[in-house]
C-alpha cells in the first residue's frame, strides 16, 4: 500500500446520449416542457429510464494501480475512453462510480498552453500559465530563466504571444509545462509539438521526469514514445481494461486491438458503390507474401484504376506512412522524379499500373499507403485513400551480430560504405 501512487478502483463514467439535447436547450424549451407535461420528470423517475435518454458508458469498471516511480502508458484507439479517464484523474470531470486514490501532488497536462492569452506578452503568459498549472509565483520566478532558455524565445519575451509563430508559441507553452514538478505527472499527447528537434528535447525532458523517481501516467498513440518511456501499460478497449502489464505485451495487445496484425494483407479493394474516376484496388507485392516484406528486397505496388470521365490532367501519387507520418512519397506523371511521362488514359475503362521500388530500405515496422488521385489543372483532389494496404517490413533476413534490431531505431537504413580504420598521420 505504501508505494502506491495512484489506485483506480472500479471506475466508470456514464454519459447520457441526448442529455445534451435535453438539458442544454434553451430556457424556453425547459419551460415549455414543464408547462406541457409538468409531471414528466417525476414520471420519468418512477418508470426509471423507460423512455429516458440512452446511456453510454465511456468507462466501465476500470481498475489499475500505478506504483511510485513507475511510468505507465495508457493506450487505446480513439473512443476507447483514454481522454475520459484522463479527465477523471485530473479532476476535470467526476466519475459516475468507483473510487480513485492519489498519493501525492498531481500535475496534469491535457494540453500545453492552457489559458495562454494572445494579448499578453511571453513573460506574462509564463506566469499566468504557470499559475493555472498550479505553480507558485516563487517557483515560476525561480525557474523563469530556465523556461525561457528551454523555449528559445529570449528575444521575444515582451512581445504579445499573438505575434509568435506557431512553433514559438508551442515551444513556450511546452517549456512552462515541462517545468512543472509534481510527484505524479499525468500527460496527454502533448509531445507532438514543434519540429523534430524540439520533440526530441521534449521526450528527453519526459525521460528526466521519469528518472527522478516520480510517477508518470502517459497517454499516447505514439507507440515508439510509449515503448521508450514506459515500463507498464494499460490498454483500454471500449471503456474497459483490455491489458494491464509490461509495455511490450501492451503494445502487442494494442496492435491486436487495432486489428493491425490481422490486417497485414497489403491489399485494398474499393467499396462497390463508388462512382467516378477512382482507384479500384491496390496490391502491395511483398517479398515474404501476405503483406510481409523483407528489408532490402524489391517491393512492387500495383494499382487498378477505373476511368469513368476521361480527363487528361489526372495525376497520381502515393505515400508510404508509418503510424505517425508519411515517410516516403512517390509521384506518377510528368515530374522530375519519375522517368515515366505518360498521362493517364483519356479513354474510359479499367487500367492497371505498378510502381517498383528496386531496393526498399524502410526499417522494420508496420506501414500503410495513402493514395492521392488529383486533377492537376483544377488542383482538386479526386480521391484520397488513407491508411490502407497495411504491410510489415521485417529485418529477419538481415543478420546483425552485435545487437538485435530494436524497434524504432530509425526510419530507414541507407546503403553506406565505410573505410578505415587507418592510422591518422596528422595526429601521430
Amino acid at each position: 500500500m505504501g508505494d502506491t501512487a495512484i489506485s483506480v478502483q472500479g471506475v466508470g463514467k456514464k454519459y447520457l446520449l441526448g442529455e445534451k439535447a435535453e438539458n442544454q436547450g434553451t430556457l424556453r424549451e425547459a419551460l415549455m416542457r414543464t408547462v406541457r407535461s409538468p409531471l414528466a420528470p417525476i414520471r420519468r423517475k418512477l418508470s426509471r429510464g423507460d423512455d429516458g435518454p440512452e446511456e453510454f458508458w465511456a468507462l466501465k469498471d476500470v481498475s489499475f494501480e500505478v506504483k511510485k516511480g513507475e511510468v505507465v502508458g495508457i493506450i487505446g484507439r480513439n473512443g476507447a475512453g483514454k481522454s475520459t479517464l484522463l479527465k477523471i484523474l485530473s479532476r476535470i470531470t467526476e466519475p459516475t462510480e468507483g473510487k480513485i486514490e492519489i498519493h501525492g501532488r498531481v500535475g496534469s497536462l491535457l494540453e500545453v498552453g492552457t489559458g495562454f492569452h494572445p494579448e499578453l506578452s511571453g513573460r506574462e503568459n509564463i506566469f499566468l500559465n504557470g499559475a493555472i498549472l498550479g505553480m507558485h509565483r516563487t517557483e515560476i520566478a525561480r525557474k523563469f530563466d530556465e523556461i525561457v532558455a528551454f523555449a528559445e524565445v529570449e528575444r521575444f519575451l515582451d512581445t504579445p504571444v499573438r505575434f509568435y509563430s506557431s512553433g514559438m508559441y508551442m515551444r513556450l507553452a511546452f517549456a512552462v509545462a515541462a517545468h512543472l514538478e509534481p510527484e505524479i505527472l499525468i500527460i496527454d499527447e502533448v509531445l507532438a509539438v514543434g519540429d523534430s528537434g524540439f520533440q526530441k528535447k521534449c521526450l528527453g525532458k519526459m525521460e528526466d521526469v521519469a528518472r527522478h523517481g516520480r510517477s508518470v501516467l502517459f497517454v499516447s498513440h505514439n507507440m515508439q514514445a510509449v515503448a521508450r518511456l514506459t515500463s507498464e501499460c494499460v490498454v483500454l478497449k471500449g471503456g474497459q481494461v483490455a491489458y494491464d502489464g509490461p509495455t511490450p505485451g501492451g503494445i502487442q495487445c494494442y496492435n491486436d486491438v487495432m486489428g493491425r496484425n490481422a490486417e497485414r494483407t497489403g491489399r485494398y479493394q474499393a467499396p462497390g458503390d463508388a462512382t467516378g474516376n477512382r482507384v479500384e484496388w491496390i496490391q502491395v507485392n511483398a517479398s515474404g507474401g501476405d503483406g510481409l516484406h523483407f528489408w532490402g528486397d524489391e517491393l512492387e505496388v500495383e494499382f487498378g484504376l477505373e476511368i469513368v470521365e476521361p480527363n487528361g490532367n489526372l495525376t497520381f501519387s502515393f505515400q508510404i506512412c508509418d503510424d505517425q507520418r508519411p515517410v516516403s512519397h512517390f509521384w506518377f506523371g510528368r515530374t522530375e522524379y519519375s522517368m515515366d511521362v505518360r498521362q493517364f488514359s483519356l479513354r474510359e475503362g479499367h487500367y492497371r499500373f505498378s510502381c517498383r521500388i528496386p531496393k526498399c530500405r524502410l526499417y522494420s515496422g508496420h506501414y500503410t499507403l495513402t493514395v492521392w488521385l488529383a486533377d492537376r489543372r483544377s488542383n482538386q483532389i479526386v480521391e484520397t485513400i488513407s491508411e490502407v494496404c497495411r504491410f510489415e517490413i521485417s529485418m529477419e533476413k538481415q543478420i546483425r551480430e552485435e545487437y538485435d534490431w530494436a524497434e524504432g531505431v530509425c526510419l530507414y537504413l541507407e546503403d553506406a560504405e565505410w573505410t578505415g580504420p587507418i592510422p591518422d598521420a596528422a595526429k601521430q
Partner: protein
Amino acid sequence: MESVDQTLMAEDREGHHSESRAVLTIEPSRGWVALRLGEVWAYRELLYFLIWRDIKVRYKQTMLGAAWAVLQPLFTMVVFSIFFGRLAKIPSDGIPYPLFCLTALVPWMFFANGLGQSSNSVVNSANLISKVYFPRLIIPLSSVLGGLVDFAVAFALLGIMMAFYRVSPTVNLLWLPVFLGLTIISALGVGLWMSALNVQYRDVRHVVPFLTQIWMFLTPIAYPSSLLSEKWRLLYSLNPMTGVVEGFRWGMLGASTSPGRMVFVSGLASVLVLISGAFYFRRMEKNFADRV
C-alpha cells in the same frame, strides 16, 4: 513589464501550500456538496493572476483604454442629471443632483459590471474548465474582483466631483468598506447563480443585461428611497443594492438619517444570495466540464 517582476519579487514567503502527502480521493458526489473554501484559499495565487489578466486585457484593444472607467459613470451622470434631475425634477434629498446620482452610480456600476462579467465567466472559461482542475469558484470570483480597479477610478472621479461641489465627507466614511464588501457579496451572489445557470441555459446571456436594467430602476439611483413610504421601505431593501446605495450616500455625503435598518436588511439578503449561490454553483460544478 517591470511591474510583473516587482510583484514577483515582493512575493509572499509563506506562499507554499503544504506539499500534501495526503491522499486525494476522487469519488462521485451526490447532491449538495461542501464549499471547500480552504481550497479556494490555497489557489489564491491563481485567483490573483486571473484578476490581473482580466484587468490587463480589458482595455488592451480599446482606443480610449482605461478612460472608459471614468467615461461610463460620467456620461451616465450627465444624462441622468439632465433627464431625471432637470426635466423630471426628481428630488435628491437636498444634495446637488449630479453628485446625488454619481454617488449611487459608482457602486452600482461596479455591481452591474461584476454581475455581467461573472455571469458569462464560466462559459467563457470553457477552455480552462475542460483542461485544468482548480476550484471553479475562482472563476466568477475573479471576474467580480477584477472590477475593483474600475471602481477605484470611478471613486476618484466621485472625489473630484465632491471637491467641485464643495461637499466634504463625514466620519461616516469609515463605513464605506462595509458597503463595498456588501456590493462584492451581492455581485458575487447573483453572479454565482447566473454563471452556473448559464452553463445549462445559454439564455442567461440575454437575460442578464435586461435584468440589470430593471434592477437599476428598482434601486434608488436616480431617485431617493425617501420617495417611498415607510412601510414599503423594508420590502424595498430586500434588494441588496438598496442598502449599498443608501449606505454610500450616507457615508460620502452624510445624507439624511442613517440607513441602518435598510443596510441590515439588504446585507442579510445579499449574504443569503451569496450562500445559496455558492452552494448551487458547487452542486452544478461537476457537470461544467461536460457541458461548457
